[in-house]
């Protein structure tokens, strides 16, 4: 009649705490790359965890809770963007750029973390977020498709383009610093 008793509530909280909290640092990292602002990322994480706590009874024990909470985060962020009128629906220009990259640059490995971060930040958001979810957070294509509510084929094609754009940016940064002797040699030979 009055809802859950205190001990039941405490049990539920303890379960949630045990399952969800180990993933909070990862979720924060996903949030900050999603919104690119610390305060906004903290708000997004807080809202995500509140929603996850409310819906915890729907979480299937033994499945990937990190993917489940990331899906909630994308849902919460989508709502937030719609409210702010910042939801981008069409990105023809980015699609076009990605489609037209035919050449595959060679990549040197003598890059610093800072240069790698600069390169990934240059990749358009739509492709970058999928590359980060797959290659940093190691979610499966299926999990990403569910989070982003897009077909798995879209995930795969965006990933393919996103990774290619990232490699292109890496090559471009490395070239600025002149650390691609091999590539320079190839160009000279041509």
């Amino acid at each position, binding site marked *: 009649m009055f809802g859950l008793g*205190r001990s039941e*509530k*405490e049990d*539920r*909280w303890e379960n*949630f*705490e*045990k399952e969800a*909290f*180990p993933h*909070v*640092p990862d979720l*924060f*990292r996903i949030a*900050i*790359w999603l919104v690119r602002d*610390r305060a906004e990322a*903290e708000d997004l*994480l*807080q809202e995500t*965890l*509140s929603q996850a*706590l409310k819906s915890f009874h729907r979480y299937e024990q033994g499945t990937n809770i990190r993917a489940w909470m990331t899906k909630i985060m994308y849902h919460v962020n989508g709502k937030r963007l719609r409210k702010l009128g910042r939801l981008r629906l069409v990105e023809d220009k980015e699609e076009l750029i990605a489609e037209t990259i035919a050449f*595959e640059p060679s*990549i040197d*490995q003598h*890059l610093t*973390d*800072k240069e*790698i*971060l600069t390169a*990934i930040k240059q990749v358009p958001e739509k492709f970058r977020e999928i*590359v*980060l979810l*797959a*290659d*940093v957070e*190691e979610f*499966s*294509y299926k999990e990403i498709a569910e989070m982003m509510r897009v077909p798995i084929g879209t995930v*795969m094609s965006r*990933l*393919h383009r996103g*990774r290619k754009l*990232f*490699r292109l940016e*890496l090559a471009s940064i490395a070239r600025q610093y002149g650390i691609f002797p091999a590539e320079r040699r190839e160009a000279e030979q041509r």
Partner: protein
Amino acid sequence: MTCREFSDIIDSYLSGELLVETNHSVIRHLEQCRDCREILAVRRAIRERLSSAVRNTEESIIDSSFAARLRSDLRSKAVGPRFGPFAWQLFLTGAACVIMITLGSVLLLSDYGPMLTGVSVNLPEPAMTNPVTPDTMTKIVPAVLEEAAEDAIDDHFKCALFHDLPERPISLEAASITVDPVNEGFDKVVSEAIVAHLGKSAKVIAAHHCLINGRHFAHVVLLVNEKLVSILLTKVGDVGQQNDAALCTKKNEVAAACFGSNGYGIFVVSETEGESVNVAKWIGPAIRSHVSKRRSNV
């Protein structure tokens, strides 16, 4: 499989997203093709570098005080405020007591006071509860304690805040048999000492033994005014003279206060320097006595 076909699926291969048969074809191709092996190694290296750069950049790391606040807010939402069904009655009774005491004090201090009591009243100065003085913050801490304090902070984050330890903690009782007898009853000692100073605003929410960075810790997690505080004890070897509690180190916006006792280091990790040092001072005597008793029992 041709090199061209391999180049189309190289990333899916690295992500483990290929069907078993395709995976076998890839492996067969790689066995014969040195160029593709090199391309694969570079792709793998790029991915690892990206992952490590994103994970280690400061902007991607959650602020520990925010994490603690978040946990505490969510806990309040989940479990509800910390009062029971008779809270209103208790509140009204308390309020009535406060009003009576205030009125009584006003009368005693007023011109009517001596008439009522027949004696003059000298109120004592309000007592300070172990204030943090600059002295406590600048004490020199033995190097072994400073070193162990880093691990204590890691334990606070990975165990108390994020429940993300590489190895599952074991009970203090089990650790007292398998690791060190000093674990036995450590939680009771901490609990009694802290409750003696803070009453019901502090409570023990977890107590166990954890292993982190190869170091064994007896770990008691307290909730003090809705904030997490870790009390950790570990063997550090010779700490020189018995030193007083002092600020040991600060990292990721938490502060560790520490003191040594009979070859053990005791650490208090919380969000503020003052809180860590004060708690360390409050529990110090009880823990020193516990350590010396348990050691003498060995």
